[in-house]
């Protein structure tokens, strides 16, 4: 009896450990593949030429511009909404918004693309950079709301009370004391949210599309690194595929660096 229990325990522990190893192996496999294929395809011209000449310069630029615009649109909205949920709102309405925001965070990104297509692309007469930025902003807002909500909940009540006692208006207390206290956490959350949307493809497919040429005109089809990876990977030539691998490598490096940076900031704060 005892033997059997111990044996079963050992088997399950072994299987669990193997699952963890399998998870790590998948990560290693993907990263090593990306590294080997990416390094082989990357040259300086990838960063100095546009897609039309066999480079990725305009695509990287375009992806950052759209994700940056989405952040400019989405962060103020998300932070303000989070402030309302945590500092002002009471009761049912707040819970409803909180739950809806959580659901929106997991909503299919392709559906958000379809929505923005009907909402912006059709009225504006064609795919354009603004629509891509708005689609990404819609993805970003619920993430920022959730981060703000969580970070503000960590600010001790005493700070609020002390602020009110100083006689400032509530909004002064929020801006000068609470947001300042939650600053590091908020920045980290926004950084991670940015890392999440910069790798998105589905919401951009039929909102911004992509563009082979250098452009800063957001009213036209706008270059997107991720959409171009999809197109290039389906292209039958080796050259296109190599470029797709180079783009995938660059994208992953960007996303992982931003992620690790965010985690590093959190750790620094905890150490204090």
């Amino acid at each position: 009896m005892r033997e059997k229990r111990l044996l079963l325990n050992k088997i399950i522990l072994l299987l669990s450990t193997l699952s963890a190893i399998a998870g790590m192996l998948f990560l290693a496999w993907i990263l090593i593949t990306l590294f080997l294929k990416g390094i082989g395809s990357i040259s300086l011209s990838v960063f100095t030429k546009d897609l039309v000449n066999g480079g990725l310069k305009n695509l990287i630029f375009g992806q950052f511009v759209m994700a940056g615009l989405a952040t400019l649109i989405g962060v103020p909205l998300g932070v303000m909404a989070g402030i309302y949920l945590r500092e002002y709102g009471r009761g049912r309405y707040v819970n409803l918004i909180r739950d809806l925001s959580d659901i929106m965070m997991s909503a299919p990104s392709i559906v958000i693309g379809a929505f923005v297509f009907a909402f912006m692309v059709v009225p504006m007469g064609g795919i354009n950079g603004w629509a891509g930025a708005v689609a990404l902003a819609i993805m970003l807002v619920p993430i920022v709301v959730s981060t703000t909500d969580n970070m503000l909940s960590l600010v001790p009540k005493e700070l609020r009370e002390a602020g009110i006692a100083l006689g400032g208006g509530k909004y002064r207390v929020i801006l000068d004391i609470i947001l300042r206290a939650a600053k590091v956490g908020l920045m980290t959350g926004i950084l991670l949210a940015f890392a999440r949307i910069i790798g998105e493809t589905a919401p951009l497919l039929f909102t911004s599309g992509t563009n082979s040429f250098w452009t800063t005109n957001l009213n036209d089809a706008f270059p997107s690194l991720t959409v171009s990876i999809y197109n290039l990977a389906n292209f039958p030539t080796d050259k296109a595929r190599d470029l797709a691998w180079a783009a995938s490598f660059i994208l992953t490096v960007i996303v992982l660096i931003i992620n690790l940076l965010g985690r590093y900031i959190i750790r620094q704060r905890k150490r204090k």
Partner: protein
Amino acid sequence: MLNKEFIFKRVAFLSATLILFILIGIFTMLFLQAKPAMQKYGAHFLVEKSWNKTITIKDTNPPKVTKVVKKKKETSASDNDDALFSDDTPVLPGDNEDMQSDDTNAAPVKTDTIFGGYIPIVGTILSSLIAMVFALPLALGIAIFLSEIAPGFLIKPVGISIELLAAIPSIIYGMWGLFYFAPIVQNIFGGSQISLLTAGLVLGVMILPFMAAITRDSMNTTPDVLKESAYALGATKFEVVKDVIFPYAKVGIIGSIILSLGRALGETMAVAFLIGSVFKLPLKLTDPTVSIPVVLANNFGEANDLMMSSLYYLALILFVFSFFVIGFAKFYFLKGRR
């Protein structure tokens, strides 16, 4: 002073309300765009297997009946103008002569295009289920490892690796899956590289870190006192997991699993590379098929009118379905979890 306070609060309130408006806006927009297809096909859309299939519609009367009617007419209206019956069939305006040549009865025909969502709906559900079957045991294993087994110095690096796996964009999973994972799946299971099975497995690898992370969080809610009591009674680690942690965190774990399913249903890019975009019901797991997000991704560009409306019908189905799956997980199982 008071005025600024008022404006600040108002702006905060409007920002929060915007979330409600965006969701209502998405639903309304999808509904309005889907309306023509909904009116035309109704609920039959859900079980119709054809997509973009041109069919010929015969005249309202079946051919045999028309002949009888014709004969009757001929006998009864013999005195009438011959010109009326000079043509054997009353050709409708805009009819295509070529279309009729197949029809032995040469009955009057119109063409119509049929769109149905059955195959993408089945493809979406099947690929998500394969992903769940593949990811669930691994995710549980990883969660158990991280919360109970791993020695202190391993918890952090393994945890971070799992979270980095979750941060990798889905298009990267697509690239890796198509060029490196699919050939291996083909070697093991046969069939084609592009198939329901490969799509489901890559989807499984993709939701694995998410599922493992939130399952671990659920398991970590178990109070240490409960676990320590069980250990003190001589329970093995497995028994603590099975008899203390699972019963305690059951609701959270089930919620995490359903939430992962909700994520899998709407995943586009990883599946788009691998499922094949073929409108055919898969007879085997290794057959290619299509899922709702992939239909949207690949057809939105060149669609118009009825096809566009049918695509929005599919988008609406996906949106509502995943809304309820995620909502169910959140409200029923993960309530109060922040």
